[in-house]
Structures are given as C-alpha cells and as structure tokens.
C-alpha cells in the first residue's frame, strides 16, 4: 500500500545501508516503516536511518524507532539515526532518545568498524 505521507530511498555508504525516510512518520505510516525496517535489519549488517527529509514524527513513530533499535541491539547489530531536522530533532531531544539509541549528526559521521 503506497502511502503518500512517506517515501523511502535506499543507499549504501561503506558497510552501512542508508535508509532515507522522507515525509511524516506517524500512526498511519508507522506500521509500514516497522515492517520495512525489520526486513532491512535482517538483510543488512549495519542500518542507518536518514531522517534529514523527515518532516514530522509522532509518538507512534518514536515507538517504531525504539522497536527497531531494540531489535538491532538484540541482534548486536549497529543501528543509527542520522541527521534529524527541525521539530523531529526537538522531539528526539526532549524525549532524550539519545539515551536509547545512537544519533548521528549526519550520514558522513557514520563510523566504520564495530
């Protein structure tokens, strides 16, 4: 089911697989993002989610990110959120998401190695 509120883009950078989310991550798109993300976690070694094009995130979206992070942690897989912008960044800051998962300022800052 295509959802106009959210579009995806895939990219590679080094050993990291970059998954770009663009649009709104809320109740409507959460399920789709969760399913896609779980698949990508299984398919890749290192998954980074590029939030530079994400305009909005709701608590349901946060929950999805937390779930993906937990799955990655259980699988000892590197997982990172990259370059949140605007209110998305604010929300992540207020909820102190940095305490639960890695947040990188940009894709370029992704570290290679373990």
């Amino acid at each position, binding site marked *: 089911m295509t959802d106009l509120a959210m579009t995806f883009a895939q990219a590679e950078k080094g050993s990291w697989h970059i998954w770009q989310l663009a649009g709104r991550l809320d*109740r409507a798109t959460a399920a789709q993002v969760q399913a896609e993300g779980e698949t990508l976690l299984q398919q890749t070694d290192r998954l980074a989610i590029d939030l530079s094009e994400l305009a909005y995130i709701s*608590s*349901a979206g*946060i*929950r999805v990110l*937390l*779930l993906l992070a*937990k799955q990655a942690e259980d699988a000892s897989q590197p997982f990172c959120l990259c370059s949140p912008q605007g209110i998305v960044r604010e929300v992540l*800051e*207020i*909820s*102190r*998401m940095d*305490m*639960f998962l890695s947040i990188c300022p940009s894709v370029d800052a992704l570290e290679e190695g373990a």
Partner: protein
Amino acid sequence: MEKIKAWIRQIKAARQKSIRNQVLVLVLACGLLIFLSVSALSLYALESTRTALENHGRSVSRLVSDSVGESAEENAKDWLRQFAEAQASYIDRELEINGEDVTILAQTMTRILTHPEYYRPRQLPSSDNPEDIVSGISYIHYSPALKRQEMPAPIAQEIGLAGNIVDALEPLSLTYKNYRTSLLAASKHGYMICVDIIPGAVGKKSIFPSAAKKADFLANYDPRERPWYKLAQREDALSFTEVYLGEDGYLEVSCAMPYYDADGFAGVVSIGGSVEDIHKQVMDVAAGIKGICFALDDKGNIAFSSEQEGILAAVPEYLDIRQSGEKTLAEAAGHMVAGESDVMRVTVEGKEYYLAYAPMNKLHWSFGMLIGTDVVMAPAQQASGDVQAKMEGFEEDVQQIFLATAGKEALLLIPLLLLAFYSSGVMAARVTKPIRQLAAGVKEITAGNLNKKLDMNESNEIGHLAICFNAMTDELQRHMKELEQATAKAERAKTELEVAASIQAGMLPEAIKAERYKGQVDLTAMMHPAKVVGGDFYDFYFMDEDNLVVTIADVSDKGVPASLFMVIAKTLLKDQALMKKSAARLADIVAAANDALAASNRELMFVTTFIGVLHLPTGRFTYVNAGHNAPIRGRGQDWEYLPMAKDPILGVRSGLAFTTQQLTLTRGTAVLLYTDGVTEAMDEQHEQFGEARLRQTLADMEPGFDAAGMLNSVQAAVKGHAGAAEQSDDITMLGFVYHGPAEDKGGRQDD
C-alpha cells in the same frame, strides 16, 4: 359472460405497465403488422391483376374486333366482288343462252326459208282467235297492216313455210318455262310466229293479261316497229336491246337476230324476256344477302333494282346515276358503266355501303350489289362484341373474386384479431411467468425472508438469474450473520470501551474545589480523549498536608493500549510518590516508576511525564520533566515557559537516573501543565496551535481569572484555532493558581 368479464379484466390489466403487457402489445402489434401488410399486398396484387385484366381485355377485344373487322372487310369485299361477278355472269349467261337460242332460231329460220323443199306448210292458230291463246302455244300474229290488205300469195306461202319454226320454237320454249318470255320470229312482211311463256301457267293462262290488252295488241302490234326488230335489222347481228316496256305491260329485254331468205334480210328472231324475272332474280339475291341489288344500263340508268324507293330504285324516267348528288355513288356508277369490276365504299342517303359491281357483257350493263358496312362488319362487330362480353364477363368474375377475397380477408381479420389477442396474451403470460415468479420471490426476500430460495426450473437466463439470486441470498445471509456477530462484538467492545472510559474518567480526580484550599491554591484539570479512551492523564493528590503533587503525562499512541499503559504509569507514580513521601526524592520516585514500567514493556510503549510537588507554605515547586512539554507559568501578561525537559521518557529503559529541578512561585502565579494535544492541535491547513499562541492566549486573559477560567480560555482558543479540523490527539490540561498560605508569610522572588 365469464369470458367477457375475463376479457375486460385483461384489457384493464393491459393498461398497467408490465413486461407481460409489453410483450402482449409487441406480439399483437407484430401479428397485426404482418397480417395487415400481407393483406395490403394481396389486395394490391388483386387490384393490379384486375386492372391488367381490364386493360388486356380491352386491347384484346379491340384487337379482335380490328382484325376480325379487317379480315371481315377483306373477306366481304372478296366475296362481294365474286358474288357480284357471279350474279353478273349468271345474268349474262342467262342472256347469253338467250343469245344462243336466238342464234339457233335465226339459223333455223334462215334454213327454213332457204330450203322450202324440206318443209311442208304449217297452220298455226292466229292471235285474233276468239279463244285466247294460252301460254306455251305457238301462234301467228298478223300486223294490222298485213291484215288490212289482201294477203299476197307468196306471203301466204311463206307464212305456211315459216310455221315450221314452231318445231324449234316450242321445244326451245320449254326451257323458258320459268320465265316470262316471248320467243318469236318476226318477218319483214309483218307477220310474227310466236310463243309466249307465262311461268307457272303453261297451257293454262292466256297470254293476254286482259281483254283490253288483247284488243290493243291485235289492233296495234306490228313487230317491225318493235325496238328489237329495229335493232337487229340495224345491227345485222345478234343484239340485245335496252329495257323497254313490253306489250304485256312488263319491262322487257330482248335478244334479237336477223334471219335471211334467198333475197337477204327476211326478218328478226327474238327471244324477249321480262326483265321482271331478272328482277326477281335480283330481288332474291338481294334478299339473300340482305342488301340492295341493281342493274345499271350503259347509260347510267338503273334498269332494275331491289329497291322500290330512293336513289337506287328503278324509275321509268331516265336518270343517269352518274350525275347523282351522292358523289361516291356517282363515281362508282361511272366505273360500272365503264364495265369495271370492283368493290367500293359508297355512301347513300347517309348510310355506308360496300358496292360490288361486275359487268354484264352481253347487255353492256353492270350488276351492282350494295351491302351495308354494318352488315358486312356485323360478324366482326359480333365477334368483337362477343369477345368484349366475354372479357367483361371475365372482368366481372375477377371483380367478384376480388371483392369476395377482400371480404373474406376482412372477415378473417376479426377471428384472427381475437386469436392474436388471445395467443399473445397466453404467450406474454408464459414468457413473463418466470420473471413474475422471480419478482415475487425477490419481493419475499427483500421483505426479510432470507431463507427463501427461488425454485425455477428454467434453463435460460431467468433460471441463471434465479441461481445467482439464490447465491446472493446465501451470501447476504452469511454477511448478515457476520455483521450481526461483528456488530454484537462491536457493541460489546463499545460497551466495554464505554465502561473503560467511565472507569478511566473515574480514575482521574476531579478538580479541587477552590473552597477546600481557599487562599492557597485553585486547581482545575481536564482530559478530552481523541478516542473513547485516551492515553493522556493528569493526576494531583497531596503527598502530605503541605505538598501537592501535580502530574501530567502523555502515553505514546492513543486508544485502549495507551489507556492501559496510562493506568499502570499513573498508579506506579502515585504509589512511589506516596511511598517515598518526599519532594526531595522526586527523582527517585520517577526512577522507580520508570524501572517498573520498563520491566515488562515488550511493546516499548513509553510515557512522557511532568511531575511536580508544590510546597504550599513556601511556594517552592520541585519537579521532574521526563520528556514532556515544558509547562508555562505566569502572572498577568507575563508568561514564560519552564526550561526544557532534561530527562528521558519513561518505560523504555530501566536503570536510568533523573534530575529534579526547582523554582519558587510567587503569590498569584498561575501554572499550566498541558500535553501536546494542545500545542499541536491543527487547523484545516495543518497549522499547529503552537507554544506562542498558547502563551499569547494566557497573556490575553482578563485579570482575576481562576484555574477553571484559564483552562476554558485555552480550550476555547484551541477550539477556535482548530475550527472544523478533527481532534487528532488527546487534549489534557492541568492548571493551578498559587495564592500562597493562609497567613501571609511574604513571598519571595522566583529563582
């Protein structure tokens, strides 16, 4: 009677619109159309045939009459000509015979006179005998001149000798017994040996028609004066006279020839015939042919004719027909006199005739026959008339057939119409019966009887439709059942939700009545869930006499899962708070609650929380903000947000540490705790209400507001901003106004 009623009912029913009636009308119309067109066609064919027959009949009869007329004319003309020629030659021949006989007589007479030695004198009765000479008896007549004088001896001798002619005369006369004839030899001396024939009276009747005539004859008759004598004498050959009036009062024609003795011309032999006989002959012929016959002499005068009156009648006076006023007749007469033989059309006294003429050579006469063209054409007319009559009869028959057929057709129309009406009614009913069955069945189903199965044995589209309908009904039944179950389930769920909502509502404390803590704090709180049950909560309770705990929290997501989590979170926080019972230990309280929440949280639900403790006597406000929106405080028009949250959201990870913060409220300061349902309330353009607008709303409040008023203002502003947009998140607010302790212990400035 019943049938008529049924008909009337049917007609009434036909007014209704239905497929049955449509089919009925259609079939009826088709049938009528076919019948009418066939009828029209046959009538047209009949009419055309009749007209053709009429025309043909006319032309045939015309053709027949024309050709018959033509051939009739031709035949008639041929026949006329031949007949005229026959008659002319017959008459001619008759006269020729006369001529031959006369020649024999003359020769005999000549021989007698030139060879007296062969003959003995003969004695003949005299015409002046007292007893009349009768027909067929030879006699001698002395002319008056001879009688007056003394009979010279040689003449007497000659008379005696001449008497031998009777041996030729009498046998010859026998061949004339049918005609009024005089056979004679007339001497130049004035005596005449004669035998008269009166037809039918040979030996009986006197030759004298009357005594007067006899007297006259005896007294006056001198043969030498007679025209035939003079003619033969003059011509010195066989001659035919013109028609002259005979002694017996009849018109005569004579054939005369001179005879000779030793000295030369001795006399004239003559056979004279009454023209009456020829006339009778002519009359017979005329009667036979139903026409007019006449003989024209060489002067153009009609010698004798079958007509008693008119132009073609024989008149005593000499009348040359060639000068006649009737031009065609005059012309024909000319040809006749010229001795021609032909057939011509003439008009006499307005009537048209065919005139056939042929010459009679001996007399130089012409024989003419007139037959009316109508008579000639009569057979043709007859034939034409017959043909016409036959054709007309035929036409009449055709007309009869035509009318009879048309009549029969019209008559046939009525029963046919009835039949058509009846049969189309039957057919319509039959065709529409399954449709009506179907309609009835469907009606029953729609009335609610979903168990009704359409039982149709048709194998056509109707049957198929019935099968589909049954399948649909089954599906419908199943769906209805499922719907009932789902509805029941939803009802139950709704009921349960409503119960949950009321439980939830019951869990959230009501506002603190202002009177209860008059002078210290005035507090109001509200929670409007976006769904039936919400994920936000607020809480307030007294830790102890002086410390009021206020809490506001936002569980991730909305709905039943969030509300369950909300209940747990709320309970845990309150438990911990009431257990530890110290504002200083607020961080521990929150940490303990967080640990408990994170312990069994597989779904990774979380909650943002702001929890604060207000020390009523001093106005000191100790708080922990775990990822929640910073509350706003202010007085009058002076409002500002508390610093941003520093602590993480609860329930995600255990073993986290939290930080407490503090500030002191002055008297009259109001504080508003809210969830993001307030600041993120969107209008139809997706524009959020926002922190700035919230602050402005609060700053715009009239002085002297209480907590309830504050909440109402904000709520109104949010509603006004959202407009028609749906409430997308729970809207929760807790507001209080700190008035300070009952005894005024003096307020301090904020930290």
